């Protein structure tokens, strides 16, 4: 698995996981009516936690991947050859995006940007109709999460099945 694909997995898991926790917290704190629920602090916390968790989990995953691969080791793997066995040095994959990663990233964004636009349009209509801030903020937040999850899914399918 390449560096960028691992990053996409982390993005997917963190986005979905943090949103699931946010929904759970909101349901636990739900007031009557639900629009009276104090959503602001949990929402801001979940955005902050998602950013920090994405960075921390990414670092942990990369350390784990490096350990599993034995980065920097002169592995000395024998490679059969007609001209006799030779020693191959196992090299780590570069920690950067290549042309395929960039194409996959573009594909993920292009195919899912309408999710964000749809959420923005729904929020706009709700604002014009003077819906409670609770719903507007949550629709916008759901739009961000839905776009993150859908784009990561599209990218992972492209990584696995091809472009």
């Amino acid at each position: 698995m390449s560096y960028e694909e691992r990053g996409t997995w982390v993005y997917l898991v963190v986005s979905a996981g943090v949103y699931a926790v946010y929904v759970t917290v909101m349901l636990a704190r739900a007031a009557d009516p639900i629009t009276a629920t104090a959503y602001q602090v949990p929402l801001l916390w979940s955005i902050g936690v998602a950013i920090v968790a994405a960075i921390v989990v990414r670092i942990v995953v990369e350390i784990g991947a490096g350990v599993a691969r034995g980065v920097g080791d002169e592995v000395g793997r024998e490679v059969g050859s007609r001209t006799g066995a030779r020693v191959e040095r196992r090299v780590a994959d570069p920690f950067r995006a290549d042309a395929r990663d960039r194409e996959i990233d573009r594909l993920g964004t292009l195919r899912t940007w309408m999710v964000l636009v749809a959420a923005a349009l729904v929020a706009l209509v709700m604002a014009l109709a003077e819906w409670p801030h609770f719903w507007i903020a949550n629709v916008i937040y759901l739009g961000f999460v839905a776009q993150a999850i859908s784009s990561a899914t599209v990218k992972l399918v492209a990584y696995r099945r091809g472009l």
Partner: protein
Amino acid sequence: MVKPTRVTNRIRALRFEHDELTQAQLADALGVTRQTVIAIEQGRYSPSLEMAFQIARVFGVGLDDVFQYPQEES
């Protein structure tokens, strides 16, 4: 699995003809990840024209010797 491209290639055969060049070594020469080389070899990713020329140059052959495209059935 349905391959997303009709382009086929002989990269695997060419690697073995060139002193069993590994996917990692080819990736290093091209400046891409080993996963990208694997995806190209398996027909899951069509490289750009520029990368296709770079691959052909690594093996010292022409583009047609690396990549093939089937004739349209009429």
